[in-house]
């Protein structure tokens, strides 16, 4: 993540990018001249095609965190599209490419949708199935694909200059790689790119910030498929002959190894990994026999010792030398609270109930929160407070009862939809996007407001400044001390300028000084018009921040009123401390 990323005028942001692009163009121009034999030039073409294929994995695995072991299948779709197009169907190469990309789009979207409800190993399994079935069809549907014999005499694409030599085609392939590389690199810091990375880091938190996670995942798969197909097309017209062998599970794993070795999130890393694993077996002839053994070994070693890949190492070194560029000042202070009359109901909960099997976690709870209130929800351990917050923010679906937010029934809605309508939340056990910087965390929070990138940045800047973390903005969030991490989560929640903020034990784990700072920030937010619903155990914090309190015990509401009243209420005292008479009778 470049340290210069956050400079507010967006046009300045691309300067290092433009430089890299120019450098890349130079490399593209020069590289084929260095490879003199036909054989080595072909290798260069192979490296370029594989790199493009690997870039697809950077999007779906590196950015979005979804395992795809089907990349060779998408690569194959592109390859077979141009192969069949230029031989059997006799159509223009570019048209054939387009058809291949469309097929890949459909396949990628279908695969993405099939895996939505699954995660982890299920996901991996479905992608493997897809890959294996694809290879089976390729090998056996002889009528269409030519079967194990493959397809030969594939043509090269018509271009401004005829691509009739290997060297010229190498230029073409490298130019394509540069283009795709630039696009994937650019994608990283867009709303979509950041959303993907948020989904990878913490899906639940991303949802709660308004990211439509299923859509993001499907888009990620689709993009990886399209990019993979492009790589395959380049390969096919480079080597002029393809056979099903090249598009099997082993090669899907090879792509995987390449992206791992290079560093899953990095464009340059992917190219590095792909090149390395393409050229290495050629350079070390004796090892050609066992190069797949080495692949396997390398995968394990990288995972155990170098999970960030080669590029990760480079980044680590780079970080030592990077200058920390401070964030510019925010253009305006943070705005929260929305427009509406103070005192009007913004949240109305009626007979809210949640059952988990036989356990009633929340039992017919009624709650009203008015605009401008700081409302506490308290109760002993296990009383259902966090369950309530999860119900309100959409993480759980109510068993029965109604939740009305801003005059809309939201019970059962997706968390992202509820977030977009103006509700933000923090989490009891902190759900930061750990590998993202403070700045990126808060940026994702600011997405909710919509509008141009510049507006999103303005909101994020304001939020970071509000919590006082401007000078730490580019640090990786997991490296911050705990108190600061909690502030990041707060900044992230308010960056979207919500109307209602739900806080789940914001004081947990903080020391006295940090709690004082938290109280100060929350009171200011409340004064600025933000309605707050806070779950807390620290009563002194509660009494300083909140004006109204609702008390739960065993899932039921047992008291409500001002904080002082409630803390003196005998039922509340008993709920927390136990019944003295009963105790003495033991």
């Amino acid at each position, binding site marked *: 993540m470049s340290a210069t990323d956050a400079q507010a005028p967006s046009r300045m942001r691309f300067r290092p990018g433009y430089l890299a692009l120019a450098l890349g163009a130079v490399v593209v121009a020069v590289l084929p001249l260095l490879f003199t034999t036909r054989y080595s030039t072909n290798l260069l073409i192979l490296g370029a095609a594989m790199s493009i294929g690997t870039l697809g994995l950077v999007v779906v695995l590196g950015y979005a*965190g979804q*395992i795809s*072991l089907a990349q060779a299948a998408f690569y194959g779709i592109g390859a077979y599209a141009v192969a069949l197009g230029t031989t059997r169907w006799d159509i223009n190469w570019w048209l054939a490419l387009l058809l291949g990309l469309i097929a890949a789009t459909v396949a990628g979207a279908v695969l993405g949708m*099939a895996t939505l*409800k*699954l*995660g*982890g*190993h*299920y996901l*991996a*399994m*479905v992608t*493997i*199935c897809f890959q*294996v*079935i694809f290879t*089976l069809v390729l090998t*056996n549907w002889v009528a269409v694909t030519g079967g194990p014999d493959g397809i030969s005499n594939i043509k090269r694409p018509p271009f401004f200059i005829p691509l009739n030599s290997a060297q010229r085609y190498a230029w073409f392939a490298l130019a394509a790689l540069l283009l795709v590389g630039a696009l994937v690199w650019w994608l990283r810091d867009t709303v979509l790119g950041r959303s993907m990375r948020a989904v990878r880091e913490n*899906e*639940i938190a991303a949802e709660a910030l308004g990211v439509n996670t299923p859509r993001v995942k499907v888009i990620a798969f689709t993009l990886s498929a399209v990019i993979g197909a492009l790589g395959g097309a380049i390969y096919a017209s480079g080597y002029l002959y393809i056979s099903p062998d090249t598009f099997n*599970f*082993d090669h899907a*794993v090879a792509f*995987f*190894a390449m992206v*791992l070795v290079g560093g899953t999130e990095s464009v340059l890393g992917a190219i590095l990994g792909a090149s390395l694993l393409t050229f290495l077996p050629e350079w070390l002839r004796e090892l050609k*026999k*066992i190069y*797949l*053994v080495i*692949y*396997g*070994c*390398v*995968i*394990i070693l990288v*995972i*155990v010792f170098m*999970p960030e890949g080669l590029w990760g190492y480079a980044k680590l070194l780079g970080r030592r030398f990077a200058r920390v560029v401070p964030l510019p000042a925010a253009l305006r202070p943070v705005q929260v609270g929305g427009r509406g009359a103070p005192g009007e109901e913004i949240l109305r909960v009626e007979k809210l109930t949640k059952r988990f099997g036989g356990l009633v976690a929340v039992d017919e709870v009624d709650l009203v929160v008015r605009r401008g209130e700081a409302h506490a929800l308290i109760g002993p351990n296990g009383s259902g407070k966090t369950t309530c917050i*999860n119900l309100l923010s959409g*993480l*759980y679906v109510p068993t029965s009862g109604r939740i009305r937010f801003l005059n809309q029934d939201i019970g059962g809605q997706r968390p992202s939809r509820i977030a977009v309508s103006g509700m933000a939340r923090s989490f009891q056990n902190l759900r930061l996007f750990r590998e993202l910087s403070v700045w990126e965390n808060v940026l994702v929070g600011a997405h909710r407001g919509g509008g141009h990138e510049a507006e999103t940045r303005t909101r994020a800047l304001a939020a970071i400044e509000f919590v006082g973390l401007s000078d730490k903005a580019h640090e990786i969030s997991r490296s911050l001390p705990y108190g600061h991490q909690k502030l990041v989560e707060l900044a992230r929640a308010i960056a979207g300028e919500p109307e209602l903020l739900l806080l789940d034990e914001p004081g947990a784990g903080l020391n006295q000084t940090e709690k004082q700072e938290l109280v100060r920030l929350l009171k200011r937010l409340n004064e600025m018009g933000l309605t707050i619903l806070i779950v807390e155990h620290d009563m002194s914090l509660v009494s300083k921040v909140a004006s109204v309190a609702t008390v739960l015990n065993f899932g039921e509401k047992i008291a409500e009123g001002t904080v002082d009243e409630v803390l003196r209420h005998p039922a509340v005292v008993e709920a927390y401390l136990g019944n003295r008479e009963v105790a003495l009778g033991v």
Partner: protein
Amino acid sequence: MGDGGLSMLGQFLFAGLAIGSVYALVALGFVMIFRATNVVNFSQGEFAMLGAYAMVTLWQGAKLDYFAAMALALLIMAAFGLLFELTIYYPLRNRSFLPVIIATIGASIMFQNGALAVFGPSPEKLRPVVDTAGGTGGINLGGVFFDYQYLVILLVTVVLIGLQYLFFEYTLLGKKMQATSQDKDMASLLGIPVGIMIALTFIYSSVLGGLSGMLVAPIFFVTHKMGATLGLKAFAATICGGFGDPRGAILGGLLLGVIESLGAAYISVIYKDAFSFLVLIIFLLVRPQGMFGEKVSEKA
């Protein structure tokens, strides 16, 4: 369907059950590791392949007695399981599932291609357990030919599952291993040596895998690739049966074996391998928790 048709059906069913048993054995080893450690071992199929090659080396290469070779090969697989646990599971035991899956995929590639490098690409043949002059022998019953090797596979599977059941239900060690797989931390609080329990699990799974490889080898050829499809199908079997449930592994394996056999016979032999995956896809889309499993969902 005339009498010929019925006995054909019987034939295919029998073959399907036998192959299904092999899938079930591999799947069982897979599920054991998963239950104990939450690790999805993508190289489980390779255990079968390695067992088969161990057998080939000892019996053909070292010219040992068939059953002595088998016993020794199983011992080798046990040692291998321990080695696997120490080098691949242990360094990654606290990491999230993604690195572990990837590492086992890497292991799978390493084993497959290592076998290729050591043993070469030409397939090896292993003698069946019951050696009759002139190839495979068997019993003819009611028009159905019951191949001895298939019978051996079914017998071994039944006996093994029975023994395993007895072990886990009636021995203290079995209970300790169950406890470890149900709640590792609580088990350690009680003084159960969790590290040893996990090592034993890997050893057992490796032996199970190796045994299934040795049993299926005489039917097909022994190649470096044999573990790949076996592993994938076993994995499919556990998902269809209900991920993490041993009963599911067994039933899923049998189901897939039968579907595959019938599909190959009556629909298309070319796409035989695809049937298992189609069944898997159907399960994943319609009932991802499988036959015995609970709802698959992410915890909030």
